[in-house]
């Protein structure tokens, strides 16, 4: 199964992880 998020955000938005990284529910995924 997969979850896909698509959203608009300010141009300086940055993700705070790398592709392939494991992530857990509730962990921050951005600089915002």
């Amino acid at each position, binding site marked *: *199964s997969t*979850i*896909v998020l*698509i959203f608009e955000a300010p141009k300086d938005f940055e993700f705070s992880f790398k592709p392939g990284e494991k992530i857990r529910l509730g962990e921050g995924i951005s600089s915002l």
Partner: protein
Amino acid sequence: IGAAFMNYCKTLKWTPIPLGVGFAYICYLQYGHIKKREKRKQLKGVTPEEGLASPWQINVYKALPFRFTSRLWGQVNSLDVPHMLRKPIYGLYARLFNCNVSEALVEDLTWYQNLSDFFRRELKPGVRPVEQTRSLVSPCDGKVLHFGKVEKGWMEQVKGVTYTLQGFLGPSIRGQPHTETTSEIPEHDYQTSLSIRPGNSLYQCVIYLAPGDYHRFHSPTDWTINHRRHFPGLLFSVNPGVARWIRGLFNMNERVVLHGEWEHGFFSMTAVGATNVGSIGIYFDEDLRTNVPGRFKTGEYYDHHYNQSSNNNTKDNAPEGVQVVKGEGVGEFNLG
């Protein structure tokens, strides 16, 4: 002029040697670069284009009865397991797929009546603290396959393997008038039609849930869900290997798109089904039925608008839609 030219040539007679040495040195450096590049290619394997499935391979894959077998798998796993067999069966599943049973709300495996129950197990309160300092958090446990900006209506499911925003969300997702004759528009125009606010960009993030992961998904932010779109579809595996092999995989699979607004504008969260996990439940949407028997056409979808009458979460005079807060449970994947 001739004498002057000859004299000039005499002065050049030693020049070819350093030139030749310099040229040889440049060749040597270039040879080193080429060797390194070829080695890098070998280590990385084939390029995405070379590794993609051909149309006939996809057609063969499509012909496999994944939807039927998934429903059968779901039905079998909805049958109650005898009490004495529960621990060995679920224990084996947990070991095979590396489930962390100690995080489950109910650790006693004999409590779960069947494997489907165990698959959608709840977590203990507090084992997944929600970061309060960030406005956007992960909606689930999983592995990040890809993320980044959506450019000209194209997205990537893994690095270098693309799918279209229009194919994924379907026509007229936001504001645009929908008619029976709505047809495909250029990908760039589709992204423009989402009316992204000035100073903003569109982003995407793909998170893959492995079989042993916690299979419920929560709200990644505070937002209002206005609309649900269900695409009946195929049930190809979505593991990273297949995502690298089949271009547009997510546009083919059964999926439920929830879309609405957050503090920065457009926001959507989509649950994409997979082989044996084609049943998607949304807690505030009793009308939703996924992976049901029957044929479907590619691109076919069913819309549902959330309003006050179908929404118990909103208070009187609240705007239309379902308001969810960061970390709140939204739905779950089920076997079947």
